């Protein structure tokens, strides 16, 4: 993974000093709240319902064991012994004290981390595929370009006061595990007809109040032009994005209003002026960063060991965990292990300090000391020997981290909702907890298969409800919490936005409504058909009839 050099280290330390000074000025009363707010937001510090919330950047979701231990240390020392992993592949602390935040940022800087640009109308943490570098289908490791974009976007002087926040994701190949089409700029690595490596550049995707799927601005961009092209898009957006209404300020609205042809013309015209020269990625710098992401020294192993099959046969719980949580690796004899942060009835994405320390230890023992955070709020050990999976599984069981539900209906995405967030209209976590228990019960009797269930506590859609095969949106209806259900969303390469099924359900009835939908799917699915496939085959009506007849 990327390691800071002397320049990067000097830079984050300067940033910590700057914020320490700003906090002191605020606590002394020299800065008013109005003046301080934008400054703290630029360091990821929000004031939420009960306390401050600090959002720490985990660039493209990659952590070393050392960094994970520091995150545990911060939770233990300055917070209530836990942290919350988010759909932006970041971590949030829910209870830090303002006076402690400069020291927390110093602790982060000591392990090459920061909270820069995790809030505010600027370019946010660049996200990627959690299987980057180990997926068989990728053209090149997308994290190399995420890191280049991370550096370029850090304190970018022109783009710190955009119309609205700006999110970029990069995926390495055909398969999309990074919800690329729901980003302000989405990037897929591509190979041209003559074999050159480059990118397909998309723009205008997003969720929120007006969900939209990104459109292709340029089908193929050679690697060296990455920064000039992205800068051209940002410059068009900075000048022409709406600033009169924050719900219409994202680039998706601009692109929709301008039309893709005209938008492309503007971007290309801007790009013509700045491409070549200073913006070109120097080949040596690309190679320098590429070297950090070189594959670890894999041992030469046989594809599938006999022992592994025996272990699965003798231990059905292990076999079930392997079936759901383990994915194929490009190197023979290795596997990708997904660690679920979705225990049945638990809080999606939460991890205790003790769990973070355990994962750090396990990563060192089994996976070259590297951990990834996924946008579905889970963790990944990407380089585990197949022969070590049983030992890893047993350790995970000890720490409550072996829930065999990756990608299933109890692997729920949920935003913090009104239990923490000052923007929320309704609670998300207690709904997800009750749903998780109920759906677990159903899943014990019938294999529900892949079904992504996502819950947001407000229209900002941090819980990705638009792209859940089942999505739930919390709304405030005359002072009561209600939940609107949508079906048919997908964040993958077959991207789609869910359809709202009908009137919202109260907090008391939403769980049984979801149960009705899931049970109806079980009744009408054909052999091996996933929920999303059934939905695309039969449409909304059968579910709707079932739901509103029953309730």
């Amino acid at each position, binding site marked *: 993974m990327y390691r800071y050099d002397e320049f990067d280290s000097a830079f984050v330390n300067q940033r910590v000093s700057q914020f320490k000074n700003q906090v002191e000025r605020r606590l002394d009363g020299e800065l008013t709240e109005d003046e301080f707010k934008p400054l703290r937001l630029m360091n990821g510090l929000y004031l939420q319902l009960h*306390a401050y919330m600090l959002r720490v950047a985990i660039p493209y979701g990659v952590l070393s064991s050392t960094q994970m231990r520091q995150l545990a240390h911060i939770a233990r020392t300055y917070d209530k012994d836990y942290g919350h992993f988010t759909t932006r592949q970041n971590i949030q602390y829910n209870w830090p004290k303002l006076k402690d935040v400069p020291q927390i940022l110093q602790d982060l800087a000591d392990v090459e981390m920061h909270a820069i640009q995790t809030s505010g109308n600027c370019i946010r943490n660049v996200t990627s595929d959690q299987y980057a570098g180990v997926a068989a289908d990728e053209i090149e490791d997308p994290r190399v370009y995420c890191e280049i974009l991370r550096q370029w976007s850090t304190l970018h002087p022109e783009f710190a006061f955009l119309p609205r926040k700006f999110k970029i994701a990069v995926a390495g190949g055909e398969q999309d595990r990074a919800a690329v089409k729901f980003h302000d700029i989405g990037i897929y690595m591509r190979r041209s007809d003559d074999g050159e490596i480059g990118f397909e550049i998309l723009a205008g995707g997003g969720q929120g109040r007006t969900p939209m799927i990104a459109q292709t601005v340029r089908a193929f961009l050679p690697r060296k032009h990455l920064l000039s092209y992205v800068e051209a898009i940002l410059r068009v957006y900075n000048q022409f994005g709406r600033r009169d209404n924050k719900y219409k300020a994202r680039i998706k609205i601009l692109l929709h209003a301008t039309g893709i042809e005209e938008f492309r013309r503007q971007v290309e015209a801007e790009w013509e002026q700045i491409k070549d020269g200073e913006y070109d990625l120097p080949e040596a710098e690309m190679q320098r960063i590429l070297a950090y992401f070189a594959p670890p020294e894999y041992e030469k192993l046989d594809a599938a060991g006999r022992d592994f099959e025996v272990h699965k046969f003798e231990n059905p719980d292990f076999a079930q965990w392997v079936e759901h949580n383990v994915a194929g690796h490009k190197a023979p004899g290795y596997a990708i292990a997904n660690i679920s942060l979705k225990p049945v009835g638990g809080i999606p994405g939460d991890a205790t300090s003790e769990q973070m320390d355990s994962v750090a230890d396990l990563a060192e023992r089994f996976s070259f000391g590297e951990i990834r955070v996924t946008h579905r709020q889970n963790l990944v050990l990407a380089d585990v020997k197949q022969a070590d999976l049983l030992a890893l599984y047993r350790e995970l069981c000890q720490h409550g981290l072996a829930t065999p539900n990756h990608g299933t209906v109890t692997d729920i995405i949920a935003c913090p909702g009104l239990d923490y967030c000052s923007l929320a209209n309704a609670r998300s976590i207690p709904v997800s907890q009750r749903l998780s228990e109920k759906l677990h019960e159903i899943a014990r009797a019938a294999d529900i298969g892949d079904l992504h269930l996502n819950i947001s506590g407000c229209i900002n859609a941090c819980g990705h409800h638009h792209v859940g095969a089942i999505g739930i949106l919390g709304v405030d209806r005359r002072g009561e919490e209600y939940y609107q259900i949508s079906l048919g969303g997908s964040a993958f390469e077959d991207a789609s936005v869910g359809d709202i099924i009908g009137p919202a359900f109260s907090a008391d009835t939403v769980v049984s409504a979801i149960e009705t939908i899931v049970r109806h799917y079980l009744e009408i699915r054909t052999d091996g058909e996933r929920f999303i496939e059934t939905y695309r085959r039969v449409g909304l009506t059968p579910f709707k009839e079932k739901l509103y007849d029953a309730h």
Partner: protein
Amino acid sequence: MGMYVITANRLSDGTVIYYTGAQNWSSWIADAFVCDSEEDTAALLESASSTKTFCDIVDPYSIEVYREAQTIKPVRYREAIRARGPSTHTSSTEKPMPPAAENQDATPDAFLNGL
């Protein structure tokens, strides 16, 4: 005729606080000074905002409350959650009850209100 109290967050740690009158604040809604008219509330908000330790208080505002069984409860559920702490099912995030307020919200279930 509604009843109102003034609330804010404490600057140093973000804690939810309530104005008790006389330039003082408490972490417990039970201690809050209750106004029963909008005009009085506006005056109280002004007094609260001019607290000498004003830089210790962030964004004071008024909320509507009602009395039930000798206690004060916010009308809106958002404020109920602010007053009580997260309603998620874990022990580490629950706001500890002050000794005097033990019976103000006896069971977490009552607070969960169906969730």
